[in-house]
C-alpha cells in the first residue's frame, strides 16, 4: 500500500476551526431556557456539618433551585471505583469514594456541599454567599508521613487507620542479591503535589428532553462512553437514552478522565429535576481544589550494585498520597512501582507501597501518572551509584540496559493493566548514543564545563533514561464510511483534548482509501456517533484507536474494490485507488468516483445478493494483548545563578523511540508540551498545603506554570523500533516528554552547583529557586 500521508508532517484538519474561534468548547454550548449552576464548597479540610441554612439564598431573585445532600435522596451515594485493584495475593484495598454532595463529613477543602441553580452564573454565585453552613472543625491529616501513622486523625472513621491500599511486588530474592553487592546505595526520595492545570477548566451541560425521553450531556470528559454508561446506570436509563458529547476540550492531561466528578451527577440530575437545561463551568479557584491532583509520594529506596555498576537488585518502600478518596484505584502507585525498573536489567526487586488517605483533594493520574516518581528514584540511585563507584553517569546506564536481543523482556511483575509487565521491544544503547552526540556530552564534560567553571560560571549537565508503558487495552473501535458526497467520515469513541486525532486518524484513512487528509471528517467523543470505547488515557489513542481506524479503513478499501470490480466487471487486482476514485490500471477513462460507488453500494430500489451489507462502510475494533513500551532519554545543559538560584537552560535534547510515527509534527508537539509540563513539575509548580490541608497557592498568579521564557527550544532525535503488538507498529508518545524531567533537573542542578562535593544531594521534586537555595546551603 502506498503510504503517502502516514509519516508525513501533515498540517491539522482541526486547526482552521480552532484558529478562527469556531470550535465548540463546553462553555460555548448554548441552549434555550438555559440555567446556570454554581457549587458551594467546603472551606475546611475536615469538618462535620451541623446545619445548612439556605433560606436567604432561596429568597434571592433569579435563584431557581438550591440542593443539598438531603435533596438528592437515593442519588446521594458514593461513586464507583473506576479502576479495581490488581489481582495480586496479599493486596489490601479500601475503596472509599466521593459523594455528589457531602452528607455529614467534609474530607477535603473544595468538597461540594450545595448546588445552586439560577438564571445566570452571576446570580448563582451571589446565592452561594447567602448560604450559611455550621461546621464543626475536626483534626486534619495533612502531611503524608504523619497521616500514615496509627495515631493520625482518621479520614474515614470506619477504618482503623488511613491505609487505603498496601501492595507488594517482588522479583527474585533481593536480600540474597544485596549480600553480594559491592555497594548498597540507600536514600529517601520525595515528590510533592502538582496539578495538571489545563487552560480550560472542567464543565458539564445537561439537557433533558422529556418528550423524547432522552438525556444529552456535554462534558469535558476524556471517557465519554463510560460516562454515558455510568449515567445510564445512575439514573436507571437505557444507554440508548443517554448521549454524552465530549466537544473540543481545552487540555486534559488525565484528571478529566476521573468519574464521577460530583458535578457529572449533579448537573444532569438538576436538569431532569428542573426540566430545563443546566450549565456548570468550573472556575479556576474551584479547579485547584475540585479537580484531581497528583504526585505526593515518599520513597525509601536502595539499590544493590556490583563493583562494575551492574544492578543486582532494588528495594523500595513508599508512601503514596491518594487524597481523601481513592476512586481511581491504584493506577498511579502501580505505575511508579513498575516504571522504576526503567530500561534496565533489575534481577531482583522488592517493592512495597502503602497508599494513604489524607484530607487533601483526590489524587488520580496526571500525565505520567506515577511514572515520574519511579524514574526519579532509579535515576537518582544510579547517579549516586555512579559517583560512588567512580563511573560515568552515561556509562552506568549503558551497562545496565536490557540488551536488544532480550525482547520481549518479562519483568515478572504486573502492570497497571494487570497484564504482565513485559516490554514488547526496544533498542536502548543507540538512542543514548544519539542523545549524547546531540548534546555534545563528551566535549562538554571534558572541555567546555571545566573552562566555564574556570570563568566562575555554574553550568551542569544531566542525562537520564526512561521507558514509558503506553497503548494499553482493553480496546477501541472505529467506523469508516464513504459518503455519497465522496467525503469520508470516521467515528471513534475516544475523545480528543488537542492530540490531533482529527488529523492523524484521517491520515491513516486517507492512505487506505486514496483520498486527501482534508476529505476525511473525524468525529470523536460523541456516543451517538460511536457506541463503544474506553477513552483517551495512558498514551493509547494512536496505538489502540489508530489501529482500529486502520483496520476499518482496510475493510472499506476491500469493499470499494469489490463493488468497483463488479461495476467494471473486472478483477480487483486490476484496480487502483487514488484521488477519490477507482480506475482500471492503465485505462484512465474507466474511472468511477468513490462518491458514485457509495451510491451504487446503497441502491434505493431493486434486489441485492444475499448477505449484502449496504454502503461503503466498516467498523473494526482493536485491542492489544498488552501495552507497547516506548523509551527515551533526555539531556540538558543548565546554568544556575548562585545568588538567586534562577536557572537558564542552555541546551535541551530529547531522544525518543515511539515506534512508527503517523505525524512527526504532532509527535514533536506532544514531546515539547510534555517537556514543558515536566519543567513546571520539576522547578516551578508545587501545590503548597499548610498543616490544616489548606491550599496556600490556589491561583495561577501563585502556582506558576512555565511561560515561553522558562521553556527552552528543544532538539529532538529519534530511533524507530516498531511495536510487534499492533499492525502499525505504533507506541504512545503522550507522556514521554514529561516523565524524566524531575530526575534530569536534579542531576543537572547538582552538577552545576557541584553539590556532591559538599555532600549535598537533590533528592526531592519539585525544586524551586527558594528550595534550591536552602538545599545548596545544607539546610535540607
Amino acid at each position, binding site marked *: 500500500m502506498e503510504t503517502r500521508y502516514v509519516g508525513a508532517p501533515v498540517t491539522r484538519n482541526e486547526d*482552521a476551526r480552532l484558529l478562527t474561534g469556531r470550535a465548540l468548547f463546553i462553555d460555548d454550548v448554548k441552549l434555550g431556557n438555559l440555567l446556570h449552576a454554581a457549587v458551594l464548597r467546603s472551606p475546611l479540610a475536615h469538618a462535620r456539618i451541623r446545619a445548612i441554612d439556605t433560606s436567604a439564598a432561596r429568597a*434571592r431573585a433569579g435563584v431557581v433551585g438550591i440542593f443539598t445532600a438531603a435533596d438528592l435522596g437515593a442519588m446521594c451515594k458514593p461513586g464507583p471505583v473506576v479502576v479495581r485493584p490488581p489481582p495480586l495475593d496479599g493486596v489490601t484495598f479500601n475503596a472509599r469514594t466521593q459523594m455528589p454532595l457531602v452528607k455529614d463529613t467534609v474530607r477535603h477543602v473544595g468538597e461540594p456541599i450545595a448546588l445552586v441553580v439560577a438564571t445566570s452564573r452571576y446570580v448563582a454565585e451571589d446565592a452561594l454567599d447567602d448560604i450559611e453552613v455550621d461546621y464543626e472543625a475536626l483534626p486534619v491529616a495533612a502531611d503524608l508521613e504523619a497521616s500514615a501513622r496509627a495515631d493520625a486523625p482518621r479520614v474515614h472513621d470506619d477504618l482503623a487507620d488511613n491505609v487505603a491500599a498496601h501492595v507488594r511486588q517482588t522479583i527474585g530474592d533481593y536480600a540474597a542479591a544485596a549480600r553480594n553487592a559491592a555497594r548498597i546505595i540507600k536514600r529517601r526520595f520525595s515528590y510533592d503535589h502538582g496539578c495538571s492545570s489545563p*487552560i*480550560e477548566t472542567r464543565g458539564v451541560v445537561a439537557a433533558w428532553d422529556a418528550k423524547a425521553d432522552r438525556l444529552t450531556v456535554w462534558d469535558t470528559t476524556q471517557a465519554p462512553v463510560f460516562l454515558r454508561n455510568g449515567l445510564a446506570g445512575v439514573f436507571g436509563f437505557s444507554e440508548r437514552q443517554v448521549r454524552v458529547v465530549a466537544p473540543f476540550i*481545552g487540555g486534559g*492531561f488525565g484528571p478529566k478522565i476521573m468519574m464521577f466528578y460530583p458535578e457529572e451527577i449533579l448537573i444532569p440530575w438538576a436538569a431532569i429535576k428542573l426540566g430545563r437545561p443546566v450549565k456548570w463551568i468550573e472556575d479556576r479557584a474551584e479547579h485547584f481544589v475540585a479537580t484531581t491532583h497528583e504526585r505526593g509520594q515518599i520513597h525509601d529506596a536502595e539499590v544493590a550494585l556490583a563493583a562494575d555498576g551492574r544492578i543486582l537488585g532494588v528495594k523500595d518502600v513508599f508512601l503514596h498520597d491518594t487524597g481523601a478518596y481513592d476512586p481511581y484505584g491504584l493506577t498511579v502507585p502501580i505505575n511508579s512501582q513498575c516504571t522504576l525498573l526503567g530500561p534496565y536489567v533489575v534481577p531482583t526487586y522488592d517493592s512495597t507501597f502503602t497508599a494513604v488517605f489524607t484530607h487533601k483533594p483526590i489524587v488520580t493520574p496526571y500525565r505520567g501518572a506515577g511514572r515520574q516518581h519511579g524514574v526519579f528514584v532509579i535515576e537518582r540511585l544510579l547517579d549516586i551509584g555512579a559517583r560512588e563507584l567512580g563511573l560515568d553517569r552515561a556509562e552506568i546506564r549503558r551497562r545496565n540496559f536490557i540488551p536488544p536481543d532480550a525482547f520481549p523482556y518479562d519483568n515478572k511483575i504486573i502492570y497497571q493493566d494487570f497484564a504482565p509487565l513485559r516490554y514488547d521491544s526496544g533498542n536502548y544503547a543507540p538512542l543514548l548514543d544519539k542523545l549524547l552526540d546531540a548534546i555534545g556530552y563528551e566535549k562538554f564534560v571534558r572541555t567546555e564545563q571545566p573552562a566555564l567553571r574556570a570563568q566562575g560560571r555554574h553550568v551542569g549537565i544531566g542525562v537520564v533514561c526512561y521507558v514509558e508503558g503506553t497503548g494499553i487495552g482493553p480496546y477501541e473501535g472505529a467506523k469508516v464510511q464513504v459518503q455519497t458526497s465522496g467525503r469520508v467520515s470516521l467515528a471513534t469513541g475516544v475523545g480528543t483534548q488537542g492530540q490531533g486525532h482529527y488529523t492523524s486518524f484521517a491520515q491513516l484513512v486517507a492512505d487506505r482509501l486514496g483520498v486527501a487528509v482534508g476529505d476525511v471528517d473525524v468525529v470523536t467523543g460523541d456516543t451517538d456517533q460511536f457506541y463503544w470505547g474506553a477513552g483517551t488515557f495512558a498514551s493509547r489513542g494512536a496505538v489502540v484507536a489508530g489501529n482500529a481506524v486502520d483496520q476499518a479503513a482496510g475493510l472499506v478499501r476491500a469493499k470499494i474494490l469489490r463493488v468497483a470490480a463488479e461495476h467494471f466487471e473486472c478483477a480487483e487486482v486490476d484496480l487502483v485507488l487514488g484521488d477519490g476514485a477507482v480506475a482500471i490500471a492503465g485505462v484512465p477513462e474507466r474511472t468511477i468516483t468513490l462518491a458514485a460507488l457509495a451510491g451504487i453500494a446503497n441502491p434505493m430500489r431493486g434486489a441485492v445478493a444475499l448477505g449484502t451489507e449496504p454502503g461503503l462502510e466498516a467498523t473494526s475494533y482493536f485491542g492489544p494483548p498488552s501495552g507497547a513500551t516506548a523509551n527515551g532519554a533526555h539531556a540538558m545543559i543548565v546554568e544556575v545563578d548562585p545568588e538567586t538560584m534562577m536557572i537558564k537552560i542552555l541546551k535541551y535534547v530529547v531522544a525518543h523511540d515511539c515506534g512508527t510515527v503517523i505525524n512527526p509534527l504532532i509527535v514533536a508537539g506532544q514531546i515539547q508540551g510534555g517537556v514543558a509540563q515536566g519543567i513546571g513539575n520539576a522547578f516551578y509548580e508545587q501545590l503548597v498545603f499548610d498543616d490544616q490541608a489548606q491550599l496556600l497557592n490556589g491561583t495561577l498568579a501563585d502556582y506558576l506554570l512555565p*511561560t*515561553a521564557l522558562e521553556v527552552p527550544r*528543544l532538539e529532538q532525535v529519534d530511533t524507530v523500533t516498531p511495536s510487534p503488538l499492533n499492525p502499525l507498529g505504533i507506541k504512545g508518545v503522550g507522556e514521554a516528554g514529561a516523565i524524566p524531567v524531575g530526575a534530569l533537573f536534579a542531576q543537572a542542578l547538582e552538577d552545576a552547583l557541584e553539590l556532591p562535593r559538599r555532600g549535598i544531594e537533590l533528592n526531592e521534586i519539585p525544586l524551586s529557586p527558594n528550595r534550591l537555595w536552602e538545599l545548596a546551603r545544607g539546610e535540607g
Partner: protein
Amino acid sequence: MTAPKARSVTTTVNGVRATRTVETRLLLCDFLRHELDLTGTRVGCEHGACGACTVLLDGLPVRSCLTLAVQADGHAITTVEGLAASDGTLHPLQAAFRETHALQCGYCTAGILMTLVAFLAEHPTPNEAEVRAALSGNLCRCTGYQHMVDAVLLAAPRLAGK
C-alpha cells in the same frame, strides 16, 4: 440585597456596532461570549493570569476578564473572529500557526493570537527573544511554546511584506 445596576453599552466589535443593556458588573469576556455570541474568546482563569481571554481594545491587548463591559462603551474591540478575511482566508499569523503546529487543544490560541497581532504591529521584525518575551504573558499548557515562536518568526516577514 440591592438589584445590580444596569447600563447601556455601545461598542464596535470586529467592525460591527452593538448596543446592549447590561449589569455594570458584567465582565467584557462574558459580554462578548454570552451577549454577542462571539465565543471564540476563551476564559481560562478569570484573574488575569493566563491571557486566554485577551482581546484588542482600540488596537491594544487587554484581558477581557479584568475589563468590565461598561469600560468598553464607546470603544472598538477586535476578537479572534475578526482576524480572518471575510472570505475565510486566514490572517497570516493564523496561517503560520497552522503550518508550524503552534496549537494543540486550541483553548489558549485566541488570546495568544490577539496578543501577538498587537505585538507584531509594533515589532514587525522581532527576534526569538523578543517573541518569547511577548508571549510570556500568556499561558499554554499543551505546546511548550516552541512552535508558536516559529509561527511568529514565519509570519512576521509575510506581514511586513504585505
